[in-house]
């Protein structure tokens, strides 16, 4: 429920037909959140369908390439391919015409957890082995409010186009660091390092970022005050940065891990041991995202340590001004 609440709140601020209960102070990563929500919303068909509607309405603001790059496993790839195919059927554009197979697979897995599909089969999801009724747009979604902190990425995409430059500038404006390397920007933006390097070179030529070399490594910095002024914001009001691709990827890993049938049937010890194993598995991504993992935890302590990880990922969810009491 906590993850669903999080997803609803984020999307409500980004144009999905829902009421936002909080105002996030961070800039969201739309593709990372979309791929995450495709998994979380399998427990909430209404969110899933509102997300499809939003994606259709705002399709021009999305990067199909990034959506695919966010995938961490085959389940992600199936969900993303089905979504792109569904969008392509309604918005016939070249970038939505993927290599996805459109033949209904013989063995279908219910898309929504614990809910048998009734009333027909959606061909785009069925082509990915996922069973759900045909999805129709609700037409209730809106464009994101570009002045909202969470939507800084969309504002930059409106200025710089959908692509590496908008991502690089968003990260550099929001991250709490004096400079960044192309490698770090590549991992955070989920673009290839060479492409990030080329984009940074272009931005540096245009004076949008500055570059200096230390110990043979190029480091990039950005004038936050100048950019904040462009957005009519005090520099300290720029939204904060979070490593969404890594954090939301870890949450998907935990969700899918927790649903393994073998795990549910296992003894209490083996469940705890598997939890401890999971902590080790997710540690590298969490470390990159600045979230601590208690690797000194024993198996008995592992469930609490994992719960702490989830809390830390969602931390700062409610420090912002509450919109409703």
């Amino acid at each position, binding site marked *: 429920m906590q993850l669903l609440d999080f997803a609803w709140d984020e999307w409500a601020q980004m144009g999905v037909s829902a009421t936002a209960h909080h105002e996030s102070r961070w800039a969201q990563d739309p593709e990372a959140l979309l791929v995450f929500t495709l998994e979380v919303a399998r427990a909430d068909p209404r969110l899933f369908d509102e997300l499809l509607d939003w994606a259709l309405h705002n399709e021009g603001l999305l990067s199909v390439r990034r959506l695919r790059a966010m995938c961490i496993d085959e389940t992600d790839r199936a969900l993303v391919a089905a979504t792109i195919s569904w969008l392509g059927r309604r918005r016939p554009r070249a970038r939505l015409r993927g290599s996805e197979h459109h033949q209904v697979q013989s063995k279908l897995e219910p898309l929504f957890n614990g809910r048998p599909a009734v009333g027909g089969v959606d061909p785009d999801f069925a082509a990915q082995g996922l069973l759900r009724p045909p999805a129709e747009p609700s037409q209730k979604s809106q464009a994101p409010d570009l002045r909202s902190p969470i939507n800084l990425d969309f504002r930059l995409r409106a200025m710089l186009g959908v692509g590496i430059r908008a991502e690089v500038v968003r990260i550099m404006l929001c991250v709490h660091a004096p400079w960044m390397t192309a490698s770090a920007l590549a991992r955070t933006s989920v673009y290839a390092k060479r492409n990030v390097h080329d984009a940074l070179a272009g931005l540096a030529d245009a004076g949008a970022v500055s570059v200096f070399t230390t110990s043979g490594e190029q480091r990039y910095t950005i004038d936050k005050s100048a950019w904040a002024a462009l957005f009519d914001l005090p520099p300290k009001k720029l939204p904060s940065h979070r490593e969404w691709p890594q954090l939301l990827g870890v949450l998907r890993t935990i969700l899918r891990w927790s649903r393994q049938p073998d795990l549910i049937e296992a003894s*209490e010890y083996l469940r705890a041991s598997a939890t401890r194993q999971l902590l080790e598995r997710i540690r590298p991504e969490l470390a990159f995202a600045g979230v601590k993992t208690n690797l000194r935890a024993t198996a008995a302590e592992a469930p609490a340590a994992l719960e702490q990880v989830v809390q830390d990922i969602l931390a700062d969810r409610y420090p912002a001004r509450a919109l409703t009491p």
Partner: protein
Amino acid sequence: MGGKNTASSRTWKKVWRCLTSRNEMSASTSLDAAGADSLLAALGEQLALREECYTLVVVGGSALLTLELVVRTTRDVDVLAILDGGELVSAEPLPHSLLEAGRIVARDFGLAIDWLNAGPASLLDLGLLEGFLQRTQRHSYGEALTVLFASRIDQIHFKLYAAVNQGAGRHFADLQALKPTEPELLQAARWSRTHDPSEGYRSVLLELLTHLGVTRGSDCV
């Protein structure tokens, strides 16, 4: 995973709490009889998960504790040998899958990585007392792990040999706790001489036997 709710599963948290605190874990973590039993049950579950199956021959503190021959704690489980196709084979080196399962159990319980070790494997090289295998006590830890614990009389043999080699300490204390009779000590002394026929060893052995109240040691070894 295929694991079932076993006794270890019901008690493992209790066992974990009985182990020393996290801050003192690893080398200083010690086990009582229930702890040793639960660790072996956990090892059995990890082996089942890997579809590996072993029959281990265990001696030392954990065996003494499990068979309730002594009341103390131990830090490890000493594997003397592995029963493979009815034959005892050296436990040194421990098979990779067994080590890997042991590593996971060590991590899960906050134990030293070598809690499961083949320290006494060299005892096999010069031979065990006749009928050793028949005297062992069989404990099953699920379908994947069976442990054969060395019997009291065999443990007296091993402990006497170790006490002579290492002097006063836990081996000597264990030997005393086993309350060996004079014939048992003399039998063990003769066996131990097959492992170390040196005059130096004999000299210390006789001293130890005298200390344990054996009066006719020099006639027999």
